């Protein structure tokens, strides 16, 4: 198995009023392709911050992240946008769907983001087909014209997963994907992640729930900004 992601000596701190909170303190991490990794830790241990840095949504104060051997901090703004668009898919605790778009449009958003009007007209049919097939796989084929507010929490999270998978990313980053769901619905979401991993999808999931974490192949514990 090849290494898809490597984090070396990550430092990150935040200012809170007059004080400075050090969240990550020289963290090192390696993720192999095709693995399902869970990062656990107490609230405030820096797990979400780590996930954001791994997905280039945030920058470390020091240290580097390499994705397939390329350092993210060396990429320009345009390449970073491409990285977020094509290489990684995010699933957030609060789903973060756009209220103004329906389910299908939300899922197609990453595909829309990568093309201009003409490009989109050319690839719209293909993108639509792919989005529908993802929604079908996730059991949402009867919800494609619904707006997010018309869906349950579990359905919203499944839409968020479909959106994250739209551009067939190499890495799926999930930040507390079950944190806002009841245990049964959360279990359903974890099953989906397990199935995706079974099909070769690399997944890094952040959770504070030990039980959920053990559904992953590898559990990384975070405490005081370091892996313990």
């Amino acid at each position: 198995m090849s290494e898809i992601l490597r984090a070396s000596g990550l430092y990150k701190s935040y200012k809170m009023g007059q004080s400075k909170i050090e969240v990550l303190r020289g963290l090192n991490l390696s993720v192999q392709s095709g693995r399902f990794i869970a990062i656990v830790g107490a609230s405030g241990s820096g797990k979400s911050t780590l996930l954001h840095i791994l997905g280039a949504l945030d920058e470390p104060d020091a240290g580097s992240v390499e994705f397939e051997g390329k350092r993210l901090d060396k990429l320009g703004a345009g390449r970073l946008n491409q990285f977020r668009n094509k290489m990684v898919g995010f699933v957030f605790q609060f789903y973060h769907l756009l209220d103004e778009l329906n389910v299908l449009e939300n899922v197609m958003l990453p595909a829309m983001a990568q093309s201009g009007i003409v490009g989109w007209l050319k690839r719209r049919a293909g993108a639509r087909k792919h989005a529908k097939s993802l929604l079908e796989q996730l059991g949402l084929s009867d919800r494609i014209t619904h707006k997010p507010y018309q869906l349950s929490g579990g359905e919203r999270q499944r839409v968020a997963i479909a959106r994250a998978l739209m551009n067939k990313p190499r890495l799926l980053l999930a930040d507390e994907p079950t944190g806002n769901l009841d245990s049964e619905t959360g279990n359903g979401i974890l099953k989906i992640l397990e199935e995706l991993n079974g099909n070769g999808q690399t997944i890094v999931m952040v959770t504070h729930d030990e039980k959920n974490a053990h559904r992953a192949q590898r559990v990384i514990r975070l405490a005081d900004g370091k892996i313990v």
Partner: protein
Amino acid sequence: MYKFILPLRYFLKRRITHLAAAAVALCVFIVVVVMTVMNGLVSEFKDKNHDFVGDCIVGTDSLVGFCYYEDFLSELQKHKFVQAASPVVKGFGLLTQPGTGQNIGVEIIGIEPVGFCEATKFAQTLYYHKDKPSDVFSPTYNPALAGCVVGIDMISGSRDGAGKYHHGPEPLQIELMIICFPLTARGALAKAGTDLVNSKTVYYSDDSHTGLVKVDARTIYLEFKLARELLGMAGATPRASAIHIKFAEGTRLKAGVGKIKKMWNDFAETYADRQYANLLKNVTVQSWLDYRRGSIAPMEKEQTMLILLFAMLGIITVFIIFVVFYMIISHKSKDIGILKSVGVSRIAVLQLFVVFAALVGTVGALTGAGAGCVFLAKINDMEDWLFERFGWQLWDRTVYAIGDIPNDIEWQVLAVIIGAAVLAALAGAFFPGLRGSSKQPVEVLQVSQL
């Protein structure tokens, strides 16, 4: 594609954007209506001044006038770019209606009706002799009498509250006495002793409605030779106050006036050794715009002030849009984070808000412009209705020389107003959009957990 879908959905879904579009619409509506009316008034006023004096005036403000005008007229008639030229004498006098014991100070304008009507649009201002201005000084009730034309507002009671003038089928036989103080070429009183004045009884033959308040309220037109005698400008070396010129079609005003200036300078030089050459020094050559500058300039100044006021209104619109967009973008920061998390660039996020602003601006501007056009099309009907029902008028027609409220829309001005409104919307949205697009996704998507 999301750059178009999202702004459209934001616009349709969020009521605050409707308010922003309504603010733009209201501003555009007000600007379109006021600018159309004001531009119409200024343009109409300029046209009236132009119609009244012709294209170019060679004349003097001196009450003495200038000599050798006939020679200059002959010179003018040799040139094809001069379509018509007519001499005029001007002076002041007293007008009295025998038996009433009252008199008023008036400006006397002596004209050769045919030539003056060719050089100006005087014929159009007449009521009874519009089609035959050559007979304007022959009263229809007795052509043998010396007729006069009076400014329409000098005839009391001829205008009703709605601003309409009323005439009988024939002019009334009104006897008027003109009293003048003739001056010599040196500016002294022409007569000595007790008989200082020239007086003449004339008869109302027609009235002139130029639409210029000061002219219509204080001017009496007499036959050229009669006026010249009354004002003391006749004699062996007759004098005139001005020559009104109309240029041939296709002659540009500035070029035409330039040529006349040169001609006049050459003429004055040629006549420099004549007895009354000193009077030629007082003569100026002016375009109608310069000649009537004193009347037109205040109105143009008002127009400029209005434009400045509306520029301020535009700034208020920009501020309203700014506030609305600031609120919308603050509310939509989560969306910005989501878009950035799927790889949308900062510029693309800014473009999204620019499209949104353009949509708000365009919808608002078109709505306001449409409403303004409809309002202007019906403005006179509405004013008539208000006057008939409530006696209310925008301008008191017994006071102001305004007929219908001008409502001809200048499409170029309309296009500029719409364009400016869209630009104002873009300007108002630009900085909030820039600020929103600069947000890091993690700033808005992180849920307080570190």
